[in-house]
Structures are given as structure tokens and as C-alpha cells.
């Protein structure tokens, strides 16, 4: 994918990432403190810290996370992984789907602290280090499965997670597997064709 370069020479994507990085530096100092305690008597078992380590796309990332922060917010606005989209922010559309320990989950409805001990995989973590696309991504490219594609990262992550446990699905089974994702362009038929193509490419290896 290429970024649209705006006047001034900075693409929108690069600009957002720069802002995100600057914010992380400015806010990460001084939050090693425990969160507020209710009552007296020291730190109760189970109290959480704000500066935590997340395993994202195979890398450990230190990040300052508020207790009420959702994983979608942390990924997009703290770690700059803007491939994960926020659609409804209510577990009703699937655009924010990521994998936690290989299982598709709505990142808008997971507290980041809930993901602390899990492997987080986002759309940015699917391609190989040399840039080779994941078979499901390749299927999407070959079949041109999406119109506006806002929902695409969520669909691709849901499909990748589903195919890990159901490598050889029928079209109906695949549709059921990605039924937790909505497409407002109503492009479902082409999306299924693209994802089925991805499944086929995965089976070929």
C-alpha cells in the first residue's frame, strides 16, 4: 500500500504516527505509581500498574495504559497500529477484530490490561518480514474482495483466526466463521470469494 502524500511532504499516516510517538514519550514518565487505592492497608492483591508490556505482532512493547483503556485505543493511538479500525466501538461491527492467542476478538471491547499475557496479532503483523503477504491478504488482492475496505482488516483477522481451527471450510462454514463482521458496502459475496481464495492459498502452503 502507498500513502497519499500531502502538500508539505508528510503523508497522513506518517503524520499520525509521528504524533502518536511524541505523545508516548511525553506521557510515559511518572506513571510507575500504583493506581489509586480504595481504603487503607496497602496494595490489595490484583491492583494493576499503568506501564505494562504487551506482546504485539511478535515484539514486546512497553506502553503506558490507563486502566479503562480499550485495546483498540492502545493499538491505534499509543502504538500507531492504525490498521485496526474502530467502527461502532460497541462489539457490533467487527472492524476492530484482532487475534489474542490466535482467537479473533473485538479489540474495542477488550481492556488492554486483559491482553497483557496474550499474543496480540493485528493486520500489520500478518505479512512476512520480507513483505510477502499472508495468503488471506493475497486472496483479497487477487479477488479484489472489498469496496471501501474499512471493514477489511477486521474481516481478514476474523478469517485468519477462523482458518487456524477450520482450515478447509465450505463457503457456508466460512460465512459463519466471519459472521461477526459487518460490511456496510454489502459486499459480502465478493468478500467470501476473496477469503475462500485465501483459504485455498493457505492450504497450498
Amino acid at each position, binding site marked *: 500500500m502507498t500513502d497519499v502524500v500531502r502538500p508539505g511532504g508528510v503523508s497522513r499516516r506518517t503524520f499520525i504516527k509521528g504524533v502518536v510517538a511524541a505523545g508516548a514519550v511525553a506521557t510515559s514518565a511518572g506513571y510507575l505509581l500504583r*493506581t*489509586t*487505592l*480504595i*481504603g487503607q492497608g496497602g496494595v*490489595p*492483591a*490484583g*491492583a*494493576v500498574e499503568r506501564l505494562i508490556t504487551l506482546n504485539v505482532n511478535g515484539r514486546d512493547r512497553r506502553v503506558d495504559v*490507563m*486502566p*479503562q*483503556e*480499550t485495546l483498540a*485505543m492502545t493499538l491505534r493511538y499509543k502504538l500507531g497500529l492504525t490498521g485496526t479500525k*474502530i467502527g*461502532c*466501538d*460497541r*462489539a*457490533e461491527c*467487527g472492524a476492530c*477484530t484482532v487475534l489474542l492467542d490466535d*482467537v*479473533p*476478538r*473485538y479489540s474495542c*471491547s*477488550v*481492556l488492554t*490490561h*486483559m491482553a497483557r*499475557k496474550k499474543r496480540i496479532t493485528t493486520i500489520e503483523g500478518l505479512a512476512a518480514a520480507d513483505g510477502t503477504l499472508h495468503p488471506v491478504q493475497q486472496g483479497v488482492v487477487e479477488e479484489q474482495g472489498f469496496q471501501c475496505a474499512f471493514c477489511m482488516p477486521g474481516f481478514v483477522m*476474523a478469517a485468519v483466526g*477462523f482458518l487456524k481451527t477450520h482450515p478447509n471450510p465450505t463457503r457456508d462454514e466460512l460465512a*459463519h*466463521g*466471519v*459472521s*461477526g463482521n459487518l460490511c456496510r458496502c454489502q459486499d459480502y459475496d465478493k468478500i467470501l470469494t476473496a477469503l475462500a481464495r485465501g483459504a485455498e492459498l493457505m492450504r497450498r502452503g
Partner: protein
Amino acid sequence: MAAIHDVMPMFTLYQPESVDDALRLLDRLGAGAWTMAGGLDSFDWLKDRTKRTAAVVELGNVAELSVIREVDGGLEIGATTTLTEVAQHPIVRERFGLLAEAAGLVASPQIRHQGTLGGNVTQDARCWYYRAGWPCYRAGGNICYADTPTAINREHAILHADRCVAVSPSDTAPALVALDASLVIRRLGGERIVAAQDYFVGPGRDITRMTVLEPGELLTAIRIPATWAGAEFYFEKVRDRQVWDFPLVNVASALKVSGGRIQSMRIAVGAVAATPVRLMAVERAVAGQPRTRETAEMAGRLAVEGAVTLAHNGYKVPLMRNLVARAIRGAGAATT
């Protein structure tokens, strides 16, 4: 309601790693604690600012709460076992397929991977007037916005309404009632066991809550006795879309049939009242009867006796009547 805010208002988060630590926290925080399992009910309230909390006790790290084990021929399912795990567990599928089927029909795949059995039965009412923050009876006010001449109340109750007309939105709750399950509730230094149908609270008893859980208490497990293992089960959920949606009506039944006659049955219906409704009159009426279309239709008519409809939910009466009849005739006869 659907506006996107900046995450949620601040709360203190606790992530205990044992039931004992969780109970100590709940005891210490009392009514100020918000217990969170999958979080899918909680996040709506907190993001919309219709309910607030100063402290959340999140149970995802309590490994002992998500264990399924066999007990006396039955099963004990930890309260934070996910709906996917319940739906796919080999023993649940083999002996208590009713529950596996109900769990597999909840919401969407992603929600089933995260939502828990305990959360599915403990979730709050989904009446949109209540969820949107209107000051209704259930929210402590003195009016029901869903039961006014211009209200939109297609999803609301036809049975046992008392001022509030919200319904129980759970799919697994009727299945657990039909399986004669009991729920294990612990508090610091104590435990009580509650029959599934007694876990739920209707508005006539307490209009501001859905379950008997008190502050400081934690639902730790669901026990299913061997009584109905391998019985003939029927579960059906009717909803607008085949994914995400809560039931318009659902039905769960367990039958023991011998020589074409119904020996015994347990049956419960969801989304028609504020609690799952066990149809004891139907259970008594069909015991010993031949399993025929006539018996099924008699049971259906009996099931909806006393139903009171609102402006837009009249369809629920024939829907419930037919689902009860189908539950008695079984999957083989369901389409005729």
C-alpha cells in the same frame, strides 16, 4: 447512545488471580465494585456513561473460574468459561447438548470467544429505554417508557410484567433452567447454592435487579446434575438476524420419552418475561401423554395463558405457542 466517547471514565482496575483474592476485593469494595468477566455487558454501560463505577474487579486472570469438571455424573462449569468453550466442550455436547446449542447461538463468534457462561446469565436487561439512561422504574424512577402509548416495545415482555416490561436476554438461562442446573455463589467466608430458576429476579420482587447476586458475592460455577444427561433436547432461538441479535423468543426443553409417551419434561422459555420462565403447568400437563401433535398444541395453548401484549409485541404470543409445541414434538417434526 451510539456516540463514540474517549474510551470510558476512569476507574481503578483490579485483576485478582485467585477466587479468594477476588472475594477479598469484593468484600472490601462492597457495592462500589463492578465485577467484570467478558465485559460485553459492562462496556456498553460504562462507555455510554449511563452507569459509572469507581472500581472494576476483572476476573480474566482467575484460572480456577474457567474450569469444566465432572462431578457425580454431572458437570461443574466455571463461571468465566467462555461460551465458545461451553459450545465446543465434548462432554457438554455429548450429555448436555441443550446447553452447547444455546451457547453456540449467542451473539457473534468474537463475542462467544470472550463472553462467559456466568456473564450470559447475569447480564442486565437490554430494554433500550433503560440502556439509554432513561430514568425508568428499573433505573430507580417511577415510569416505564416502554409501556406508554407511543413506545416501541416489539422486544418486550408478554408474561409476568410488573411496571417494568423488560425481558431476560439470555440464551443459556432457559437451557440451564431446563437442565435443572444450580448456581454456586460465594462470598468471603460463605457459599450458597441457588437453583437456576431461583437465580433470576422479576420486577415484582425487585424491579432494579435481574439476579439474586448481592454486593460482595461472586457467581463462581454452574452445576448441571446428571438427571437429564442424554435426554432428548430441543433448543430454538428466533431473532431478526442470524448473528448478534438477542432472542425475540427462545425455548429450551429436555424430554424423556418411552414408547411414544412423554415420561417427564422440563421446559423454559426466554425473552418473554424478565426472567427465564419455567412452564411447570405444561410439564405437568404433558407427563404421561402421547407425544402427538394434539399434545404439543395443547401444551402451546397452555403455555401462553395469561399473556398480556403491548402495542408491538403481540406476535410473541403465537411465536411462543408454536415454539413450545415444536419443543414437544422434537427436531424431527419441527418443520411440519
